[in-house]
C-alpha cells in the first residue's frame, strides 16, 4: 500500500520557525510521500518561504507541494518556488512527477487551481476583461491539471490542488463564497485525468472528504479541517484503501 501524507494551509510566517518540523520528524514511519496543498506562507514573502524551506527540508520522504493564493500575495511566487525547490521540495504548477515507493510508483499532478464556482452558481466569462480573465484563469488551471494527470503513466495518480474541485468539501463554508473557493472545472479535470484521489486545501471551514461526479475521492487537508499535522491516505492498485485522520477513524 502506498501511504500518502497530506497537509495544507500551514500558513507559516516569520514567527513560525521550528513550529512544524518536530511534527514531521518520524513521518517516514507513517508515509511514503508528503503532499502540501498550498498556502505554505502567510503572505508569500520570500522571508517566510525561507522558514517553510527550513521546516520541510531533509525529511526522509519526498515532499511535493503546490502554491496557494496566500503564496501569491507578495507578487513573489517565482522566488518562493525557487526557495522551496532549493530545499528539495518538488513544486508543481500544472506539472506532474512520478515517485518510486516501496509499494510501487505514485504519480502526483498538481496545480494551484482557482475559483469559478459550481453548478448552479458558476462565474461566466462575459463582460469586463477582468471577468473574462477570471474564468479563463480557472479554465487554464483545470486544463493544466488534466494535461499533467494524463502525462502520468502509473496507475496510482493523485491530483494536488489548493482550490477545491467539489462542493462536498466546502460544506461549512458560506455558500456565497463557493465560487471563490474552487471550481467544478477542476473536478472534470480530475475525472478525465483518471485520478485515484484528489487532495486540496483552502477551505478552512469546509469538510474533510467528498467525491467528484465521477467518483474520485476528494480530501480537504486544510490544517483547521484535519486538526493534525497531516493526514495519511493508503492507496493500492489505483484505489484509496484507507484514510487515517480525525474524521476517518
Amino acid at each position, binding site marked *: 500500500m502506498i501511504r500518502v501524507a497530506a497537509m495544507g494551509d500551514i500558513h507559516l510566517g516569520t514567527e513560525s520557525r521550528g513550529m512544524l518540523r518536530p511534527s514531521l520528524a518520524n513521518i517516514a514511519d507513517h508515509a511514503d510521500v508528503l503532499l502540501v496543498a498550498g498556502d505554505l506562507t502567510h503572505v508569500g514573502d520570500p522571508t517566510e518561504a525561507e522558514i517553510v524551506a527550513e521546516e520541510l527540508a531533509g525529511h526522509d520522504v519526498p515532499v511535493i507541494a503546490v502554491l496557494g493564493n496566500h503564496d501569491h500575495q507578495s507578487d513573489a511566487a517565482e522566488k518562493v518556488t525557487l526557495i522551496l525547490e532549493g530545499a528539495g521540495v518538488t513544486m508543481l504548477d500544472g506539472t506532474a512527477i512520478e515517485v518510486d515507493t516501496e509499494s510501487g510508483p505514485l504519480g502526483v499532478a498538481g496545480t494551484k487551481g482557482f475559483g469559478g464556482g459550481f453548478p448552479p452558481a*458558476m462565474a461566466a466569462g462575459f463582460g469586463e476583461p477582468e471577468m473574462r480573465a477570471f474564468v479563463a484563469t480557472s479554465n487554464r488551471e483545470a486544463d493544466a491539471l488534466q494535461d499533467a494527470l494524463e502525462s502520468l503513466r502509473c496507475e496510482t495518480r493523485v491530483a494536488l490542488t489548493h482550490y477545491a474541485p467539489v462542493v462536498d468539501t466546502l460544506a461549512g463554508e458560506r455558500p456565497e463564497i463557493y465560487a471563490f473557493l474552487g471550481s467544478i472545472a477542476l473536478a472534470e479535470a480530475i475525472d478525465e485525468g483518471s485520478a485515484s484521489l484528489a487532495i486540496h486545501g483552502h477551505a478552512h471551514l469546509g469538510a474533510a472528504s467528498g467525491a467528484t*461526479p465521477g467518483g474520485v475521492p476528494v480530501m480537504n487537508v486544510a490544517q483547521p479541517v484535519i486538526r493534525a499535522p497531516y493526514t495519511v491516505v493508503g492507496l493500492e492498485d489505483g484505489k484509496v484503501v484507507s484514510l487515517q485522520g480525525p474524521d476517518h477513524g
Partner: protein
Amino acid sequence: MNSESSAPEYVERRLTQAVAEHHGLGELEVDFRVEGEVIVVSGNLASEEHRATLHEVIAEVCPGYEVQDLTGLAKPPGERS
C-alpha cells in the same frame, strides 16, 4: 476542458460557458439543469431570436440531448413595472 464528459455538472458548465461566450447573445439569466438526456433550460430571454440562437448553441455544445425549454421572454424596458 480538454475532452467531453457527460456528468450533469460538467454539461451544465459547458452550456453556461458557451452561452456566456457566444458573441452577440449576451444572455446571462439562463439556467441549465441536466436530467439524464434532457436539458431543462429556464430563465428570461430578450427575444425569440435569442431563444432560437440559444437552441443552436445547445445543439452545438450538446448534440443528442432533448431540450425542455422553460424560458420566458423579458418585457421590453418600457413595459417593466
